[in-house]
């Protein structure tokens, strides 16, 4: 129950879902960069090559966020069901003075409200974030964490070097 409540609260933090997508994509690039490092590339070149191989990070991230925020057919059906329950509950509540019927109305309203909130919370997936959100690390080794831009003797950046080598 606590985890559901946690999810619900996190869902209201719009940035949380976006951070989650970013973390996942950066994990991929970090792992690929490590693999390239093991093949003998420098940390900068490994990162540049991994990033190039990955594709347009911003575009992919935007696409994932857009897809993640879309509602599926099942969610839509549930939403319609909860809306109907809510309206029915309100209708019973205002049109009946009998105690037992107003209780039914209250129950329907409560089911609709909690159901909708849970649907909203679950949209971002089963995620638990740590209390403080630190800037993402790419998981490269210590020397490469800061990834300073170094130029070679031809004045090329790591990206330009990797691109030239791929050709």
């Amino acid at each position, binding site marked *: 129950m606590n985890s559901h409540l946690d999810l619900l609260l996190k869902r209201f933090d719009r940035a949380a879902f976006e951070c989650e997508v970013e973390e996942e*994509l950066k994990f*991929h690039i970090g792992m690929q960069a490590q693999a390239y490092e093991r093949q003998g590339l420098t940390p900068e070149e490994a990162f540049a090559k991994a990033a190039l191989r990955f594709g347009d990070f911003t575009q*992919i991230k935007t696409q994932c966020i857009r897809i993640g925020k879309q509602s599926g057919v099942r969610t839509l059906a549930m939403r319609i069901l909860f809306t109907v329950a809510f309206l029915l509950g309100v209708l019973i509540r205002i049109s009946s003075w009998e105690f037992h019927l107003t209780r039914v109305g209250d129950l329907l309203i409560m089911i609709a409200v909690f159901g909708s909130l849970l649907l909203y919370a679950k949209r971002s997936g089963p995620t638990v974030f740590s209390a403080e959100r630190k800037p993402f690390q790419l998981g490269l080794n210590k020397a490469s964490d800061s990834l300073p831009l170094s130029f070679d003797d031809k004045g090329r950046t790591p990206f330009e070097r990797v691109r030239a080598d791929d050709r």
Partner: protein
Amino acid sequence: MANTRTDLMQGTLELLILKTLTREHMHGYGIAQRIHEAVDDLLKVEDGSLYPALYRMEKRGWIASEWGASENNRRAKFYKLTRAGRQQLSAQSVNWERISQAITKVLQSA
């Protein structure tokens, strides 16, 4: 080296992902690596294109995800196949067989 890698047909990436996840639950990077190994670099599978497909498949209920610790103890999102995903895999596999047979037939007759 001549460029002999073929672009992936639309929709086939989902089939590859579903098949990859039948063995075990994996993170996105693991799925990408497994697909690259399996297709032996003959197909051009962009690493980044995997993620929109994963998110779409999760929306459709074919796969489910949860965060866990990766092999190097980093936080990673793991995907696993759902029952709907297994059904989808068998349906898509049958469909793929049919399409490939049909195309082969046309190519052989022409």
